[in-house]
């Protein structure tokens, strides 16, 4: 009788349990894979409306849903760089002890890519970390990601070299009259200079400066300046100019070799003043295609105005192979890696429009106030 009763109770209980949703586990925190799929993008939200509270949002642009994968704070005109050789992310930022004031601390914060949590930091002395609207070239790797290089601006310009494996600062390289970091060979980087050339800084194995040299002049900052952003295909960086030239720079040896520039524009397009414009105005894919954000009726000063179209060039033929007419006005563009690349566009509402990079078709919009101003986009891998 007693056994029967227990049996009945067990039966009733299990029926009930099946009829109800189970209790959920409490305290689960999501994790991300150590290597992200090719369809993921780091969207750096400069957040002009609250500059100290900038962030990077990690987005899967290809998924049907759950596009927002996670975020990390990168504030006060911060710089950001994901590693490829280890599951780490680097954020260069500035804190004040009392948020808007008080003691200033510049740091490189090292984030674990799986947990998006800070695992270490390197304090940067001197309060001179360069604060810019957000560039990619202000934080770069050398020597297979052994060295992390950070741009300073005080307004004197220099580059701090950090051994990021050992997590310590090893040197500071002065780059007077020049700006930003374009890695060339294992231990060398170039910077763009006010006198229309590149300064090349060669480091020793320990990260200290070995020597510096200058390339020949190869562009005109007065008449047609190069943008800071470039599209890199293999060892060649393609720098667009304000008026629509493409300047290929071969970075395969320590000293960069500027190739012959070519125009993106037909005579008609030149007459219509088509020009590159926006923030991150260029991106590239390993298949040799260069993507440039373009606008019509350009003028002196329109180089940050964004664009209505993305033009796709075959860099071997130096020929346009596609025009993507954007659904919404574009501000920044990035092309993802891999076989099925996506063209990611920060639009004028500061949401992301996702297009197929292959056929230019619009696929989805990712937004909903995920970002205030995602000015820079880093494709994963």
């Amino acid at each position, binding site marked *: 009788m007693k056994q029967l009763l227990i049996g009945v109770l067990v039966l009733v209980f299990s029926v009930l349990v099946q009829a109800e949703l189970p209790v959920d586990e409490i305290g689960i925190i999501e994790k991300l894979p150590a290597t992200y799929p090719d369809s993921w993008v780091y969207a750096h939200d400069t957040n002009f409306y609250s500059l100290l509270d900038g962030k990077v949002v*990690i987005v899967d642009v290809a998924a049907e849903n759950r596009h927002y994968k996670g975020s990390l704070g990168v504030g006060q005109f911060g710089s950001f760089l994901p590693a490829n050789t280890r599951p780490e992310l680097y954020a260069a930022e500035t804190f004040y002890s009392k948020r808007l004031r008080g003691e200033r601390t510049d740091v490189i914060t090292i984030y674990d890519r799986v947990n998006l949590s800070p695992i270490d930091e390197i304090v940067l002395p001197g309060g001179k970390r360069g604060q810019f609207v957000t560039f990619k070239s202000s934080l770069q790797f050398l020597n297979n990601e052994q060295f992390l290089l950070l741009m300073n601006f005080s307004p004197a310009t220099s580059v701090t070299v950090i051994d990021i494996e050992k997590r310590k600062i090893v040197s500071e390289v002065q780059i007077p009259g020049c700006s930003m970091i374009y890695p060339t060979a294992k231990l060398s980087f170039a910077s763009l200079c006010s006198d229309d050339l590149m300064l090349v800084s060669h480091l020793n194995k320990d990260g200290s400066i070995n020597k510096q040299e200058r390339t020949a002049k190869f562009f005109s900052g007065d008449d047609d300046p190069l943008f800071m952003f470039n599209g890199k295909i293999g060892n060649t960086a393609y720098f667009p100019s304000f008026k629509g030239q493409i300047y290929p720079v071969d970075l395969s040896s320590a000293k960069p070799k500027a190739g012959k520039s070519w125009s993106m524009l037909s005579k008609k397009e030149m007459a219509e003043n088509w020009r590159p414009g926006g923030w991150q105005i260029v991106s590239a894919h390993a298949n040799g295609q260069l993507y440039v954000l373009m606008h019509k009726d350009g003028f002196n000063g329109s180089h940050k105005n964004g664009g209505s179209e993305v033009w796709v060039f075959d860099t071997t033929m130096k020929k346009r192979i596609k025009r993507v007419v954007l659904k919404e006005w574009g501000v920044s563009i990035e092309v993802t890696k891999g076989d099925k690349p996506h063209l990611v566009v920060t639009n004028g509402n500061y949401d992301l429009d996702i297009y197929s990079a292959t056929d230019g078709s619009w696929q*989805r919009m990712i937004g909903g*106030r995920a970002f205030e101003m995602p000015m820079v986009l880093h494709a994963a891998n």
Partner: protein
Amino acid sequence: MKWLDMFVEKSSRKIARVTSRRSFLTGLGTVLVGSTAIPLLPVARAAGGGDSEAGGNGYPGVASQTTGNIEDPGDPTSCDYWRYCAIDGFLCSCCGGSHTTCPPGTEMSPMTWIGTCMNPVDKKHYIISYNDCCGKTSCGRCLCNKNEADKPPYRAFSNNDTNWCLGTESSIYHCSTGIIVGVAVDKQ
């Protein structure tokens, strides 16, 4: 069957009484315009925005989800998802977490506010714990505010205007979950 419900109810209520109500953030992100509750700022912003692929969650630029379980109906990215009957804040489902998990790098608050919501499929009332995820800045997506049974702060554990990122390393609020912790008294 009442006895089993009441048993679950009892243990759940205990949680409710001890850790009790919950979290932070009135929104007023939602205000009544006409007679439909819509989250105001996202809508205001979306007005200048582009098209949306959002199913019907009311947040342009946020794609719909399902729980994958027909017994747990609705869209966890929608403010109308049944578990959110008393939620208040940014939905973690829109922020890299889910309706039951926190986004990477955040910390789940150990203290929560508890609501009681009816699952429209089985018509049962579930006790939902709205644990906050803390330590990263305001997610910004899917602000959702439902105030059924919300009381002012003098009934602290029934109040959602308080930042409940309390027992966490950082009190910075990021987003909110809606976790089933039990079944309430069957009201049928």
